[in-house]
């Protein structure tokens, strides 16, 4: 702390702020539209008409991505699918602020509860506030297999349901951890062929927790996904990253159960913690492609086509290049403005197309918005409904 010279880099910090500004200018021109000020007059909730059969897919990046590498002009080459295919169809929120703890599990749990959770990021504990999965299942009396989470393995196995007594037990989402499945499926096989898919926990590169491989996971593969172990192993060999495995599993769930609420957390880009910028960029490229693949799946699966709303958002950003005490893209430890500010894209059924919202919104606003679309109350969520997305 004593060695920081923050005041000497104020000019440099302004560079970072101008990047955010240029992103907004680009998006407005790309979408050929006005900004939020022109849209605040709408009162769309009553008309949102999320009737039974509608689906919600939420994709979060548990890696954090910055403006410079995504929607800033110099970053757009890393996300061609998001920019050219998905953005024009979406309502885009350019300033989504996360005011909570910037660790991936606790931040994702906060996104799912609509309240800033405060537990230890590395502890395998349940969120303290009810999740959107519990609001959904309790509110609409939905069965367990109608809400799923596909997530990286470290800690996320508890994200499906809270420890709130009024909700919690028996009302959460089914959680599937692809790396656990793969670990179980490959115990008898040549593990070296699959190690690139078992990569885990970039936040602490030292730490590689032992993955469980049990009968439970084997049963999940055969009974839930309805694919043989041999088929699962063979397909895994064609994949190049853990996130590709997650999307493969998500697509299997879409075919098998067609859940109304599907939440997928991608994690490849968090390799940034290793300090290799090229690998971080590679992770963003892959995430961009996987988002497009998921959108394509949503459009082509009969159970999802024309009745699905999809949300895409990083859980938060990463440190600015110019913040003293950080090391730029590598971490998200300073709590600076760029590490707290990110974006969100909503597209599909019931969503206004080609809208850019410039006003700052809170990452907690996701849950009340999902609740409005699902027509369930979210009484303990702290965020506010994002009215701008709704197509009336």
């Amino acid at each position, binding site marked *: *702390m*004593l*060695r*920081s*010279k*923050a*005041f*000497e*880099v104020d000019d*440099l910090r302004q560079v970072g702020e101008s990047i955010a500004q240029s992103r907004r200018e680009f998006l407005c021109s790309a979408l050929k539209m006005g900004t939020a000020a022109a849209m605040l007059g709408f009162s769309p909730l009553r008309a949102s008409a999320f009737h039974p059969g509608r689906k919600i897919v939420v994709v979060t990046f548990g890696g954090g991505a910055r403006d410079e590498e995504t929607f800033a002009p*110099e970053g757009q080459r890393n996300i061609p699918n998001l920019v050219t295919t998905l953005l024009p169809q979406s309502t885009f929120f350019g300033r989504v602020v996360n*005011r909570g*703890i*910037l660790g991936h599990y606790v931040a994702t749990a906060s996104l799912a509860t609509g309240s*800033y959770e*405060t*537990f*230890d990021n*590395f*502890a395998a504990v349940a969120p303290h506030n009810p999740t959107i999965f519990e609001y959904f299942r309790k509110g609409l009396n939905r069965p367990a297999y109608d809400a799923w989470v596909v997530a990286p393995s470290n800690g996320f196995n508890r994200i499906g349901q809270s420890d709130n007594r009024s909700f919690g037990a028996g009302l959460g989402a089914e959680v599937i951890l692809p790396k656990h499945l793969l670990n179980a499926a490959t115990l008898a096989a040549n593990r070296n062929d699959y*190690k*690139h898919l*078992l*990569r*885990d*926990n*970039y*936040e*602490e*590169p*030292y*730490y*590689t927790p*032992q993955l469980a491989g049990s009968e439970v996971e084997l049963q999940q593969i055969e009974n839930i996904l309805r694919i043989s172990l041999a088929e699962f192993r063979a397909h895994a060999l064609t994949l190049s990253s853990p996130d590709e495995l997650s999307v493969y599993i998500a697509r299997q769930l879409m075919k098998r159960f067609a859940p109304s609420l599907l939440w997928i957390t991608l994690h490849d880009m968090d*390799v940034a*913690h*290793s*300090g*290799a*910028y*090229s*690998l971080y*960029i*590679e992770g963003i490229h892959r995430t961009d492609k996987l988002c497009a693949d998921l959108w394509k799946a949503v459009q082509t699966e009969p159970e999802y086509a024309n009745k699905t709303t999809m949300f895409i958002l990083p859980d938060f950003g990463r440190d600015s*290049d*110019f913040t*003293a005490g950080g*090391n*730029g*893209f*590598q*971490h998200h430890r*300073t*709590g600076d403005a760029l590490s707290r500010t990110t974006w969100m894209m909503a597209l599909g059924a019931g969503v206004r197309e080609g809208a850019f919202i410039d006003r700052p919104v809170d990452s907690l606003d996701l849950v009340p918005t999902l609740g409005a679309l699902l027509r369930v109350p979210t009484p303990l969520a702290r965020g506010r409904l994002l009215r701008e997305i709704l197509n009336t």
Partner: protein
Amino acid sequence: MKPVDLRAANFSKYPKLAQALALQYLSVLQQLPLPLAASILNELSNYDWLFPAERWSIESPLAFLQSLSEDKRDAALAGFRRIVLSNQISSQDWVNQPGEFLESMTAYLWSTHQFDSFSSNARKFLEMWQSTRPEPKPALPRLCIVVLGEGVRADGVSLFNKLRPHGIFCPQVDDPHGMQTILNALSERISQRPFPYEHWYIDGGTPAPWDEPHCIRISWASLEPVRNATLKRIQEIIHRGNSGPEQLRTEIAKTRPSDIGFSSEKDEVLARFELSIFTQGSGTQIFSTTFAQWTAREALRRARPSTLVVRFATRQRQLSMDELLANKEIHKLQDPAGSLLDADMGSFYTWINQQRLTGSDQARFIAWSQEHRQAVSIGPSCPKGTTTKGIMSIADLLEI
């Protein structure tokens, strides 16, 4: 214990110089709010193993606080006094284990939404202290040269885009002996000021055959035994199976140079610095490009040298994290294109970190790609956002 209860005996476990400094400023320490006292002791407790510039950064704020009237001191510290810690945090041994205390406190500040307030108060305090007692400017204008070395290449890549607006871009640099020219320039500067820790050469591969007794030389190749010993220690802790990432980090941070085979005859300040690259950096144990960037960052942040030469070499290809940590022979597979992107960003970060130091308005910075034969030069005599015509040598660049 509260800071006001501090006594000389509390510092009995501190190393000699640190203990003396704590006693010299005991009355100041007694008046500090706990979050600030622990932050200062975290650095002060390592005083014996810090670089001269770091020692100044500990002594100077203490002297600043001592010089203030009571009213002004209270005003300077008011923000820190508003930070509320739990009894559980406050009761930890923040005098003898300030690092572990700060880890707990940081987590607590995040969870209670006080982290931003703490950071803001820290920034205000820094501004107050440093505007009153500015750090001395370097006797020699700082010079930093980053080399994207042999083999670090890719097709169709535009280099130094983030640096170009700040200086002269040189698209044609033809100099087969450029590295030697750089080392000669380093020797020249050493001859002008042959002082400890003032000149550094960091190599992300095998260092060039060059030796100067007054230059700190650190390389990926020469630190291989330290790296391997650190990785082995990490594996041992992981295989014990009872430690999460935070405990692992804490245990690794306790590693001493003697634990992993450093000679007792080696300069302990430097030995601890080298060890910290692997125990405190993320990815430095695995990727040579991260090692080079992080080591340069830490050298600038901590030692604040007047001369720094950093050379990036190719890094190993990405493999699964457990394979990398197991450090098998597969590390010989290299990724030249990925290394180029890493090094390009690393050169930008090195410039930023040089800019954080005193005398930045007079500092020179050069980044040069040996393979792509391009360079960028930044300094008071380098017009911003310009491009040179014609072929240049490294000597030409140094003379701008």
